[in-house]
């Protein structure tokens, strides 16, 4: 069955006062019913002025590879300088539990000045129906 894939996006910026915190959190889900497209600016809440000034999320999307969820989040750099960041995808199952908790790796990301880049992630198994993307500054 081909699922109609829509993004239920909600992007949150959480306070990241220290280097150990997760900076930006982006979320998306696979839904069978059609959602009204929500403008990205309404899906983005900026609480962290520092990281929020430097990068923005301009698009999130989900798809399925077989029955495995794939996610893509497009980031843009709003600054002219190179940013050293880290990101990781977190996957959530239908019951709201994190899939394979504590196994997602923080991956390095170098975002050049004014660059737009799509980050992609693949769920560890077919149980995942939602994702979160966490972004923080490199430590």
């Amino acid at each position, binding site marked *: 069955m081909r699922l109609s894939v829509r993004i239920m996006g909600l992007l949150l910026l959480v306070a990241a006062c220290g280097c150990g915190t997760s900076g930006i959190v982006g979320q998306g889900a696979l839904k069978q019913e059609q959602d009204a497209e929500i403008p990205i600016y309404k899906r983005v809440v900026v609480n962290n002025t520092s990281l929020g000034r430097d990068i923005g999320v301009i698009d999130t999307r989900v798809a399925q590879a*077989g029955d495995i969820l794939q996610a893509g989040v497009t980031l843009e750099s709003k600054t002219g300088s190179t940013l050293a960041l880290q990101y*990781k995808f977190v996957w959530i199952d239908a019951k709201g539990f994190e899939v394979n908790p504590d196994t997602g*790796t*923080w991956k*390095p990301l170098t975002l050049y000045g004014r660059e737009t880049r799509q980050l992609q992630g*693949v769920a*560890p198994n077919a149980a995942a129906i939602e994702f979160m993307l966490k972004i923080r500054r490199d430590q």
Partner: protein
Amino acid sequence: MTNPIRTIILGATALVAALLLGGCSAAPDVRYGDTNAHQNLSTDFGSSDLQQVAEGMVDSLLTFPPVIEVTKVRRPILSVTRVKNKTLQHIDTESITDSIRAKLIKSGKFQFIDRTTDQEANEEFAAQQESGLVDPRKAVPGGMQAGAEYLLTSNLSEIRQQGGRVTDVYYKFTMNLKNLKSGILEWSDEKEIRKIKTRGLIGG
């Protein structure tokens, strides 16, 4: 010297001494770290590189269209060989393949043959068949194990360059999935990692 000034000097001296003694405390600073954190302590192949490689390979394999087609209807049986380490470093390459194998098993899409525990399995078979301790009706019969359909092979290589204070190390991890029946390479992918270290003006 007046009394208030002497008191201030004595107080400041005591504070500095306390800070110094505190800093030289005999108890070492031991704490738990985040196993998934990305740490760059050197240009050597580290734990976060291992995790990145394993995740990248598994993501690529799970989303490769012909693999999706095969795993839709059944769980193919794989065997994994040890990584050929072509770097100049001593790397426990078995832990890379262990991580990849664990992630693939947890994906629910594949089954694995583990040849590293064959000796222990043979000892258990011998105990069941020959020791006289096990009910013959309940003993596991030999010669019934499944054979691998596919072989996962991999290489890890590095290119190291050094100029002045800068060391640039490029790692390339290549993984292939070979169909043992046909000999065809069904899937292949590479994961590249580049680490750059700039030494300080003073020291290493």
